[in-house]
């Protein structure tokens, strides 16, 4: 039943997943031309457009890490900083020690299969002294290991294990990287866009029950 996700050709996509509509690279900042405004139904308050962000925090980061800080945007009044995956751990340690972001609220990933570096590793930080939130994002390719931030925030231990379990992102430097929610011998990474539930079911049914399709 080992449907190795990598050799699947992209067009076998679940019917109801979005078609080429969102083909434009969804990085908000780069999509300069926002998609055509939704038909003006009753006057709805549209959210503020994502806008490049340039406050002192971003300047300090740029001064410190130079081009490792790829972009900084403000989407719906929330600061997002895109960083290079390689320096993720140093930037994380800097954010915790000097910028006082002492709590890693959440660490997760988003799968954009059409990009060459398909995964977004997203870190939501929070600072108790400054009562501020910051979101670090890093792009990671399919089999490209991401530096683990376990030493910086110990809570990342389970969060990174869940990311590995759901997306297959390998966090190098993690003390005990193995699946956390799914059984250890599980094949495939469910939250990847090309992990098709329907195909999973038909494979299993065909293999174990010998009938064509369970639907």
């Amino acid at each position, binding site marked *: 039943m080992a449907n190795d996700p990598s050799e699947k050709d992209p067009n076998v996509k679940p019917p109801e997943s979005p078609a080429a509509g969102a083909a434009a690279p969804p990085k908000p900042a780069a999509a300069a031309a926002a998609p055509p405004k939704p038909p003006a139904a009753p006057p709805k*308050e549209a959210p503020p457009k994502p806008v490049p962000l340039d406050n002192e925090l971003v300047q300090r980061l740029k001064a410190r890490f130079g081009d490792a800080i790829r972009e900084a945007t403000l989407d719906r009044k929330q600061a997002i900083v895109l960083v290079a995956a390689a320096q993720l751990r140093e930037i994380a340690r800097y954010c915790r020690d000097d910028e006082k972001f002492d709590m890693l609220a959440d660490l997760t990933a*988003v799968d954009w299969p059409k990009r060459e570096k398909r995964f977004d590793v997203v870190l939501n930080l929070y600072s108790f002294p400054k009562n501020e939130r910051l979101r670090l994002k890093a792009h990671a390719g399919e089999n490209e290991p991401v530096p683990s931030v376990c030493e910086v925030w*110990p*809570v990342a231990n389970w969060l990174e294990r869940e990311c590995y379990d759901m997306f297959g992102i390998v966090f190098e430097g993690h003390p*005990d990287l193995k699946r956390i*929610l799914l*059984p250890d011998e599980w094949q495939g990474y469910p939250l990847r866009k090309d992990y098709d539930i329907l195909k999973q079911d038909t494979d299993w049914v065909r293999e174990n029950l010998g009938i064509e399709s369970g639907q």
Partner: protein
Amino acid sequence: MSDTRTDDRSKFGEGVNATVLGADEIILNMGPQHPSTHGVLRVKLKLDGERVVGSECIIGYLHRGVEKIAEHRSYQQFAPYVDRMDYVAAVSNGLGYCEAIEKLLGAEAPPRARVVRTILTELQRIASHLLWLGTHALDIGALTPVFYCFREREEILKIFEKYCGARLTTHAFRIGGLQYETYDGFEQDVKRFCEDFDKKVDEYETLLTENRIWVGRTKGVGILSAEDAIALAVTGPVLRASGIKWDIRKAAPYAAYDQYEFDIPTRQTGDTYDRYVVRMEEMRQSRRICLQAIENIPAGPIMARIGKVLKPPPGEVYHAIEAPKGELGYYVVSDGTTQPYRVRVRPPSFINLQAFDKMARGSLVADVVAIIGTIDIVLGEVDR
């Protein structure tokens, strides 16, 4: 924050490698079917005699892949799934999700909806804490409080049932506001409940707070220092019991919390007894909020004008609320279609449970039950 600090912190990370056993250590397996693990949680304890030397929580027995389902549902269709995660506090799950999507849309629920949402969420917090108190006391051996707690919780569930027809997985809110207008007599019911609830909390306190055996079983058990709490990103009553005065309802007010004043109970030592005191005090504060809220529920519409088909422009948002267990966050990425591209739930129980290993080390086997109870986890939310 010198670097040396990080070295000792890294020792949190390594799970108990069960194969390496000390001289007379044994592995004790608790769960997944166990009377006091609050659901299907399996804990592998490494014991040296009676003392717990290491522990590893094995979870995932209740994993339903909610986040994968979200990618194949429209925004409104996914709302009922949110109730099934922390099924003990379904209303606050719903509030978190609806407000996250409203932020994504840039919409804002009308004032009346925000006030009613606050009342129902606070009632749900009381109900969740009551269930915690009942089962926690039962695990430690006090047979009576569980029946008192469920008697009060029943009153709250009746109010939910009258309002939206369901008691547990209520799906009470809609994106943009409320579906149902409050039934007439809603204010009187809430007032009657809040009126005599204070006396009821005193009843529990007389049963437990000064009870020498209760104090003996909870004081000094499962200690979590403030520094460890922040390092492990523990939130909610567990964090406040370790001495950090932080509550999202005050730090980043949402719904109508900025209109009412209430205080945040905190304690210093961060042991099971402190978490008990913090949660009891939180119930009283929630009652205070409800009483202030039902004084004047503003008139006006209960639904924002966001139309039937929701197509939020591409982008992402992270919205966090103060659920009874801690910070419940929703990270929603939209790609402009009617279905969310990615919904990530930041589950307080899952992250608080990771602190179990730190709390359980050095304690006795009999305390493990008390420690699991004091973290107040719900496996639906841990496994998602």
